[in-house]
């Protein structure tokens, strides 16, 4: 039996939630963006009025103000977005338990089993759309199709507050003339490569020779070929399914440019504390530490090193990060942002081979100290206990990396590719 797959996408999600709460911003150009004072200066989402004036997601706040001088900025409220996302999923779950979120604002649903009771895909989409409008006060665009790829394409096809149905009968007429870049997983680079082959529309991909695609794009070539033809039977994951955690990382744009080793140590300390605390919270040890550096010229690089033994001890992660930094950066330019990531994770329960030269007693002491710090922070807040050297610069100190960490959708392929 053919499946009925829906993809629901909340229109300008962050901006819509803010517009609901701030009625005065509904009729003016508005963008949700990081705190310009703390220099997290990009537009996360803009409302439709601002978008019409040329404001795009990812623009720096000053650029947005250049194209649209009267724009109003609102700092993001992630707790509200998580709350609204949860409400939306509660509504979805009255139709199916097969729902797979993609970030906070998008979700696939397989409603095949509900169609006999609740009506066909279009009817279910209409009901979801009207319930979200009434109960959450925001709008969604929904795509209905027999596979996840076309369902997602459908939710992008018409916005805002729209429903698009792609069937076996109409998809050649409606989808194939669309530019290749609209297809899931065709980014700018792939689009450029396809353009060189004379492939400009989704239809061109569908009618091309898969072997040629493969030879130019690698295995993604086959994947795109089948996507364009609607041959996709990836299941919509069950509710509560979460991709296995592959790494724990934090990064931040610093309140001011970093120019000295001490600056970097202060920020790395905060990041390492956050990463190691999150590793401990989730019962992981990491075997590799990776750092990333972005200079004020926006040159970006990352370096990683394997640790002699798996760890979630704050001191060991800080030390590894610092060594990596010293070995890879010669202060060619001031630094704008830093990141630390623990990867190559193993379970915290895993037995560990001891060796003769490590002072296990001291290591155990450090672990107990970490636990004590975690507990103090849990009870009295992040700033209740800090390293003394962090006080060298009070402006940089105002960074609770763990609380501020951002939310990213997991990759679509999980670990299949």
């Amino acid at each position, binding site marked *: 039996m053919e499946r009925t797959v829906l993809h629901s996408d909340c229109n300008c999600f962050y901006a819509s939630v803010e517009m*609901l709460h701030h*009625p005065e911003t509904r009729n003016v150009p508005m963008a949700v963006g990081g705190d310009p004072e703390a220099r997290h200066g990009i537009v996360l989402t803009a409302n439709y009025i601002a978008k019409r004036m040329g404001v795009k997601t990812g623009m720096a706040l000053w650029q947005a103000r250049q194209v649209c001088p009267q724009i109003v900025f609102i700092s993001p409220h992630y707790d509200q977005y998580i709350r609204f996302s949860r409400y939306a999923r509660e509504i979805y779950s009255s139709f199916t338990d097969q729902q797979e979120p993609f970030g906070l604002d998008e979700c696939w649903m397989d409603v095949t089993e509900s169609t006999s009771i609740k009506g066909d895909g279009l009817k279910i989409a209409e009901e979801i759309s009207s319930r979200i409008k*009434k*109960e959450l*006060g925001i709008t969604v665009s929904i795509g209905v199709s027999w596979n996840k790829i076309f369902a997602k394409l459908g939710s992008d096809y018409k916005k805002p507050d729209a429903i698009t149905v792609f069937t076996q009968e109409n998809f050649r007429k409606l989808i194939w003339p669309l530019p290749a870049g609209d297809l899931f997983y065709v980014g700018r680079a792939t689009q450029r490569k396809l353009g060189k082959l004379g492939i400009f529309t989704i239809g061109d991909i569908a009618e091309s020779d898969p072997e040629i695609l493969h030879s130019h794009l690698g295995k993604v070539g086959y994947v795109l070929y089948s996507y364009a033809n609607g041959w996709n039977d990836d299941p919509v994951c069950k509710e509560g399914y979460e991709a296995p955690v592959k790494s724990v990382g934090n990064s931040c744009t610093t309140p001011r440019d970093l120019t000295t080793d001490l600056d970097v140590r202060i920020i790395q300390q905060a990041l390492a504390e956050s990463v190691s605390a999150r590793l401990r919270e989730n019962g992981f040890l990491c075997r590799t530490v990776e750092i990333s550096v972005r200079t004020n010229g926006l040159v970006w690089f990352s370096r990683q090193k394997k640790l002699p033994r798996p760890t979630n001890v704050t001191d060991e992660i800080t030390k590894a990060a610092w060594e990596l930094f010293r070995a890879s950066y010669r202060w060619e330019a001031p630094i704008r942002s830093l990141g630390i990531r623990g990867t190559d994770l193993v379970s915290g329960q895993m037995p560990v081979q001891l060796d003769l030269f490590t002072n296990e007693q001291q290591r155990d002491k450090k672990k107990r100290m970490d636990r004590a710090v975690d507990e103090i922070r849990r009870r009295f807040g992040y700033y209740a206990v800090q390293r003394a050297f962090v006080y060298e610069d009070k402006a940089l100190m105002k960074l609770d990396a763990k609380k501020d960490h951002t939310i990213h959708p997991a990759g679509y392929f999980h670990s299949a590719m």
Partner: protein
Amino acid sequence: MKVYVEVLVRYTAEGTVVPISFMWEDGRRYQIERVKNVQRCASRKAGGCGIMYTCIVQGKETHLYFEDDSAGRWFLERKAS
């Protein structure tokens, strides 16, 4: 406009929440005669979203919202700003 109000609430043995009365911004306390309906609803007028209690107050229908976020406050819609 959104007006946060003080609400007196009764919890039944089953855990159901029944609002009894609320204090309006002029300091007067209003008795809720009856709760007609309870559902999740957004209020575009007030600018918020929560669980809407459709109440009868002095014979008239009033919407009292419980905003179920971390603060957990109650609000009413004020007619004009």
